């Protein structure tokens, strides 16, 4: 896990230094001497290896350096400022999307091969295939502008979070519902479900106590990829809805070559992802009794 982080940091660092151009605005307006001073100030004139070590050292202290774009601002403060909106729409999308996805998936599995099932599968395919930004743009246009039900952009009050969260949640709903449906259909075919029915348990009991329990556990493994999807999604969603979040900042920084911010956010995202995967692993181990007892005593 830490190895991965280390690899990412190193990789990103050296990539950054391969970037053409300088991080400063309007370099042609600066004289050579000024450029030299600026370079010295940011330590850019030192050999790359040295810069790398220095960076690592700072990293351990949680110091991600200073932004080149915005003079005097530290990268961490920028991240902290910006993380709020992204976290809000991200979490809302996750929670809302998962709940709806679960409901859709369970219902369509229970009503297998009926209109409801086909309808929900179709929705899922659409949700997965139509690119999120296309959907977001259309959403913004039709609901935000034409119908005016919800504010189409910016970030003034809670209502402004709704459209972006919804747009983000679409792919979550699609993925989760398909996955749950497949899992449930598989579990429904297992022998122990027949055993449960043979015991005389009511159908709702069978579904809730036996089917759901077994079907939901693998869904946990989806959380990792889902989190990544959301992180990716925020880049465009924030752009479309003008949400002042981390994603928007990331895109901006890329366009102006603000090295340290790019690096900082990259490391942040990667660390976040690794953390989620780690948590998922542990959760899965807790939920599925077969994992921990691999070496259990047999009688």
């Amino acid at each position, binding site marked *: 896990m830490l190895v991965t982080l280390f690899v990412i940091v190193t990789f990103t660092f050296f990539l950054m230094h391969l970037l053409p151009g300088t991080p400063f605005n309007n370099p042609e307006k600066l004289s050579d001497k000024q450029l030299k001073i600026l370079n010295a100030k940011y330590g850019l004139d030192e050999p790359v290896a040295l810069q790398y070590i220095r960076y690592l050292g700072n990293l351990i202290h949680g110091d991600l350096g200073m932004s080149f774009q915005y003079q005097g601002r530290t990268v961490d403060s920028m991240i902290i400022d910006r993380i709020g909106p992204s976290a809000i729409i991200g979490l809302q999308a996750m929670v809302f999307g998962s709940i709806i996805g679960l409901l859709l998936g369970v219902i369509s599995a229970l009503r297998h091969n009926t209109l409801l099932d086909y309808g929900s599968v179709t929705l899922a395919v659409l949700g997965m295939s139509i690119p999120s930004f296309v959907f977001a743009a259309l959403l913004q246009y039709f609901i935000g502008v034409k119908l005016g039900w919800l504010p189409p952009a910016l970030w003034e009050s809670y209502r402004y979070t709704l459209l972006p969260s919804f747009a983000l949640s679409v792919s979550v709903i699609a993925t989760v519902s398909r996955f749950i449906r497949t899992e449930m259909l598989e579990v429904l075919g297992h022998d122990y479900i027949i055993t449960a029915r043979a015991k*005389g348990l009511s159908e709702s009991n069978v579904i809730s106590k036996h089917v759901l329990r077994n079907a939901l556990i693998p869904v946990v493994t989806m959380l990792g990829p889902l989190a990544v999807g959301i992180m990716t999604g925020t880049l465009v969603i924030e752009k479309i809805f003008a949400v002042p979040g981390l994603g928007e900042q990331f895109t901006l920084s890329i366009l102006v070559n603000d090295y340290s911010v790019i690096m900082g956010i990259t490391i942040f995202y990667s660390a976040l992802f690794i953390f989620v995967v780690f948590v998922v692993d542990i959760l899965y181990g807790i939920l599925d009794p077969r994992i921990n007892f691999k070496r259990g005593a*047999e009688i």
Partner: protein
Amino acid sequence: MNDEILEVKNLHVNFHTQNGVVKAVRGVDFTLNKGETLAIVGESGSGKSVTAKAIMRLLPKQNARITSGKVNYEKNDLLEMPLKKIQQIRGSQISMVFQDPMTALNPTMKIGRQIIEGLKKHQNLSSKEAKIKAINMLKLVGIPNAEDRLDSYPHQYSGGMRQRVVIAMALACNPKILIADEPTTALDVTIQAQILELMKDLQAKTGTSIIIITHDLGVVANMADRVAVMYAGEIVEMGSVDEIFYNPQHPYTLGLLQSMPKLHENRNKPLIPIPGSPPDLASIGTGCPFAPRCPYTMKVCHYFPPVKKEILDGHSVSCWLQDNRTPKELQPIGIGGTI
């Protein structure tokens, strides 16, 4: 007879598959008496499992259809009962044990809980009472350390132990009928013997009637009072275990018995298998289903289904060889007499 506890009449079950309609059970009749063990024998695909599941209405809703028949239990037709009533009967009056103990238990639920579920539903016990009963059941089936074992999971048990747990679950509510679908097929031979002994033991203690489904004649000889031989969805011969083993009348039964290797026989004597394979139940025609493989076929066998004839009290056969019009010389040695 007054001793009857279950009566199956004219049961027909169809499966609707991608390849067409498969007639899995084509007119099955039998009765089960109190306290007896009835064995249903046949090859894979003969329809024995389907019959068992049909009794409890456990067939998959998607593609199975019980097209006709009655299953009479305590003056009610189980096939016509509302779902809620059937659910009350399942597990408490009629229980089932399945073939594969590895997959028959919920892998993510503690064993104790799986047993207690049924107890709570049918016998309205409090948690404490149910727990005690569960422990007793585990002890009854021979699981050591029963108190601790309640909290363990299925994957912590071996195959034989799991099957014991399944039996414990099935018998927890003292059912009147136990249907065991190939309960020992997936187990090692030594464990098989243990399980069968356990079942006989429990039957002696509780007086449960048992329907045991198997393809193993050894199991039949060991456990059964009466035997029904199934082929291609029909019962071709039925009688007491002695009659079936010592006075088989149907060529299929004969074939089964002849194809079993016997320890005491001469090694050099060749095994006599039944040639060919069972018919495709999606495209089965009229006539006796065994005719294509029967060494004693007559013309009539190919066109007309045989009539069931009761040759002795309790021993019935469906075969044209039993008909009066059949010339004596066509009957195999032993038919109509003992081998």
